[in-house]
């Protein structure tokens, strides 16, 4: 029993139950006619899954999202690691990404559509500009903060630069790089939805705006809920892959 109470899942379940309860309560007051209760939302969600109207929209959302995230992960980690290793690249790149991270990037979306039209390219780029800065900056600062004694160890045992980067710096930086990836993924989800709301209504963004326009608020919230659930699951999977690839020490104690 006590091990059940101490299990991290118990705590998470508890916080989900509390949040759902609060939602149900607020929906029942009701704070606004446009705010359905938790149970109404869930039954709408069940209905939309059952009739296929939800499943059919997701490919359109996931396509730019996944392509964008893959591009910004690979490019972002490469940029960040390079900036962490190379003083010139740091001097050039760090200010750019620091500005990008704090700028309201959604304002750039009209520019993107002007340059690349309203197709897939603009949506992928929206995902990229949202998710890349945090990935770059995390990778960069993680590499910069590799313990010096660990690098000295690699040098004293005659590791080549390549070995020191691949066997010491990257694994040492991986927790912070992964933290950046998780934040970047969350930003990427925001980017994908923004693109669908601001560029052309497709996928889940279309489902949200459409249901809002016909005042089917329970369906609208179900759509929002579903994308949030996907984001959480996705980020959770990302965390597992870190343990699997880089940090077997954490996997053991899990």
């Amino acid at each position: 029993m006590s091990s059940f109470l101490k299990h991290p899942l118990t705590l998470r379940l508890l916080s989900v139950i509390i949040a759902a309860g609060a939602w149900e309560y607020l929906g029942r007051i009701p704070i606004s006619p446009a705010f359905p209760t938790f149970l109404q939302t869930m039954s709408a969600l069940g209905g939309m899954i059952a009739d296929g109207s939800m499943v059919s929209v997701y490919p359109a959302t996931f396509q730019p999202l996944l392509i964008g995230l893959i591009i910004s992960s690979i490019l972002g980690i490469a940029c960040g690691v390079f900036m962490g290793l190379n003083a010139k690249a740091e001097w050039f790149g760090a200010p750019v990404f620091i500005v990008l991270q704090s700028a309201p990037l959604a304002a750039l979306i009209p520019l993107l559509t002007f340059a690349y039209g309203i197709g897939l390219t603009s949506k992928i780029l929206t995902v990229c500009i949202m998710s890349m800065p945090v990935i770059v900056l995390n990778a960069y600062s993680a590499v910069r903060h590799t313990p010096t004694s660990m690098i000295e160890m690699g040098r004293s045992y005659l590791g080549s630069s390549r070995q020191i980067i691949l066997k010491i710096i990257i694994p040492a930086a991986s927790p912070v790089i992964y933290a950046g990836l998780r934040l970047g993924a969350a930003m990427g989800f925001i980017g994908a939805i923004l693109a669908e709301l601001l560029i052309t209504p497709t996928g889940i963004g279309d489902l949200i705006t459409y249901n809002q326009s016909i005042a089917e608020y329970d369906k609208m919230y179900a759509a929002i809920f579903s994308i949030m659930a996907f984001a959480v699951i996705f980020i959770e999977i990302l965390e597992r892959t870190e343990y699997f690839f880089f940090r077997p020490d954490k996997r053991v104690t899990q």
Partner: protein
Amino acid sequence: MSAVAEAVSTDKTDIAVSVNDVTKIYPGGVEALNDMTIQFPKGELTSLLGPSGCGKTTLLKIIAGLLEPTSGSVTVNGKNVTGPGKERAFVFQDFALMPWASVLRNAAFGLELQGVAKSERHAIAEKYIDAVGLKGYENLYPHELSGGMRQRVGLARALAVNAEVLLMDEPFSAVDEQTRRKFQEDLLTVVDDEQKTFIFVTHSIEEAVYVSQSIALLLPRPSRVSEIIRPDIRRDISPDAIRRDPVYLDIVERIWKGLRTYVE
């Protein structure tokens, strides 16, 4: 003062490491070493003993080839040091173990970097893990070990690459007094078993006298060698008897008097 160092060491012909007129000024302007000259005889354990901040780690890193001296040179077996080398291995004060790697992989890491095949390097590492008393812990991760056990993994890693010169930076500072004594005895066995040269940094006078063939007393920063002492204590008696041996106690007292003038 450095004349003393030379006078003592020239009667030993086999010199493994020789530090010649090394000066180190850090970029900030701190002069850590000033014209340091010292020789380390082959097959012996030499301790570097001196006040905190006097430049012991600096000297060790220069010998390791991790730091460049501002002027002067270091030779190992007659060859000039220009960077890290295969014949030298470092035991780090803060262990420098990789938290994501098991004890086995950490101990074998020097060999891994040299490109030794997995099965071979694991066999060698296992041998040294056993030698430092960690048999059975091969698959644990550093965070599952005590400080003293981690230190021994660092020692196993240094032994596994089979370097002739072992550079040890306060290797026993992270352990309690009982463990420390056990380590010192283990170290004496390792020194006897392996025909290697040990350069050993310590803060503890007793430890230096107990484990070393010779002790270099360093002056405060900018550091030079003030004196070299060869504590010819009896090794054929039990560790506890050594620690009560009047000769041992005399040497400890003498070093303490020598160092006290700087502390005051």
